[in-house]
């Protein structure tokens, strides 16, 4: 009984909301990219570089908000690589994403050494202020994430531009016939996912810790993709799935002792939940039909 009360406590709820923030933002980014037909497993790396850029931006300017701006710009730049490589050169999207993840992992550690001459984590640079709204007390990115969910939903389902994105991801040839520039939409969507991934990274470094640590994303980019898949590529679904995964993370990070499970293994909970959810509730359905396929005008 005691455990159940601990698990469904306010502490866990607030912690869930904070931990869900980077997942929500990254999964919204993933939705833009995949809805337009481009797999973006680079989100993990984009988040990592975004987290670094946020701290570095604050280090340079002294302002956490400039840090966030840096995260977004750098997210756009890294996503730009993915966009050029996959949309322009039509390279395998998973391969390009993997390369970006490896690049991000090496680049951030390399830059830690170049900028601060350290290897594990940056000095404490500082973090975003906390905004208090009634009982809520979070960093601003948390509110931004929650507002973006309906915004992205409206953009995707209620605007002509959203219709175009979905058309490009489902049936690029038909979209092309209608006069939509398939590759341009894809390019923009991948870039957008970079902006979301960048700010998701800032949520980790500037929003929570005030420092950058190597590999601090720890698979959150991939968990966000799983949230997107579990949410059937729908912003509201991805939001709910992000909350579920964040809940698992909140439990794993809390001091709650689960009987029969060694302390060290409780940390595997978010990853195990991800696997179970992907395997049981999702199946093969619902992915945008053209996802993963480069679009070539001349081919049928």
């Amino acid at each position: 009984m005691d455990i159940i009360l601990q698990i469904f406590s306010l502490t866990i709820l607030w912690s869930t909301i904070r931990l869900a923030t980077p997942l929500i933002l990254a999964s919204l980014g993933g939705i833009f990219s995949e809805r337009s037909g481009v797999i973006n497993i680079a989100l993990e790396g984009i988040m990592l570089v975004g987290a670094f850029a946020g701290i570095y931006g604050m280090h340079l300017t002294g302002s956490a908000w400039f840090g966030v701006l840096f995260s977004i710009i750098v997210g756009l730049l890294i996503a730009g690589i993915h966009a050029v490589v996959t949309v322009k050169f039509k390279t395998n999207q998973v391969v390009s994403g993997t390369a970006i993840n490896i690049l991000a992992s090496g680049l951030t550690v390399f830059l830690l050494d170049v900028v601060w001459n350290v290897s594990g984590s940056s000095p404490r640079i500082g973090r975003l202020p906390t905004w208090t709204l009634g009982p809520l007390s979070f960093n601003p990115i948390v509110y931004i994430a929650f507002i973006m969910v309906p915004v992205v939903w409206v953009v995707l389902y209620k605007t002509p531009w959203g219709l175009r994105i979905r058309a490009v991801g489902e049936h690029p040839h038909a979209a092309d016939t209608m006069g939509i520039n398939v590759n341009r939409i894809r390019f923009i969507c991948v870039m957008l996912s970079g902006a979301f991934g960048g700010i998701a990274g800032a949520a980790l470094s500037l929003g929570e810790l005030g420092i950058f640590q190597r590999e601090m994303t720890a698979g959150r980019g991939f968990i966000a993709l799983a949230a997107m898949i579990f949410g059937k590529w729908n912003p509201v679904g991805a939001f709910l799935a992000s909350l579920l995964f964040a809940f698992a993370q909140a439990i794993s990070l809390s001091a709650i002792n689960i009987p029969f499970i060694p302390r060290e293994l409780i940390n595997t909970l978010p990853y195990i939940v991800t696997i179970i959810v992907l395997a049981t509730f999702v199946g093969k359905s619902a992915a945008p039909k053209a996802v993963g396929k480069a679009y070539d005008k001349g081919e049928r």
Partner: protein
Amino acid sequence: MKNNVYFKYLKPASIELLYAGLSILVALIIGAFFILFTETSPLVAYQRMFEGAFSGNNIYATLFRSTPLILTGLAVAFAFRSGLFNIGAEGQYLIGAFTAAWAGFYFTNLPRIIHLPLVLILAIIAGGLWASIAGFLKAKLGANEVINTIMLNYIAIYLTISYGIRAVNEQPGQPGTPFILSTARIGNLGEIMNVPAIRVHGGFIIALLAALFMWYFMWKTKSGYEIRAVGLNSHAAEYGGVNVAKNVILAMFISGALAGLAGAGEVLGTHSRFIQGMNAGHGFTGIAVALVGNNNPFAVVLSGLLFGALSQGGFAMGRVGVPRDIVTIIQALVIFSIAISQVIRTHLAKKRAKEAAK
């Protein structure tokens, strides 16, 4: 001549080598811009890297570094051939390494001729089963193997490094498992040649044999043919009477087994136990190794040697003030340039075919 197996497989490998060489050159040129940030001349840095990898006894160190990379490269390549993206070689490597370490100290009073093979077989099975989880979920439930193998990486880290090391030690705070018994050690070339500086261990021979195995299995057996058929077009294979689900699981098992073998080699030949720093990214480097080798086992060996040289040379660059993580950046750049060069190649081939048709 045309039917000669060596001719058939080595000729494509030499073309791969040309493309790989060009791609690496491009990656090194872009990498030079990153080196400029460190206020070291890229030329000096690369010269050090080259010396660090090839001069004198360093060539042995390169062979030593390439040993796990050849095996994880083969692991990723094997999965690629069956149409699967195994990003989980890192986790399978850890599970294999931990199993080898455990079996290395747990079984006592066995003669070496039994102990060493037993340890290797257990590591192979453990790595294979770990990968099979993702294979099973893919085959039976359609769950994305890319995300699942990545999740299994994180679980493997907690299972072996956070939990496993404590679980097998009586006293807390140990940085590794107990040392393996001498009956489980793989022989070292340096011991045989009586030059202690040489660290190449028997795992290198195992890696070469694994490449031979992959070639034989993939191109000379029915199972290998079926796995390749699934990789080329799973729907057509299914229609042709191939059991796709079975082959997906089998391919993941063998892929994981090769990664597990890489882990076993590092434990039995290098550290003599499982240590906290075991997750050195060999699984991820394996992705680059497989791509550069274009999933051809013999080219993967060469590509593994090349990445071993990069890794070994990275230490030498570290001594002139270039962080050795530049090697990781160069690896990523190599993947980009290889991937783009392959697309350009296909494009050129198509263009040529079109012109020939006219």
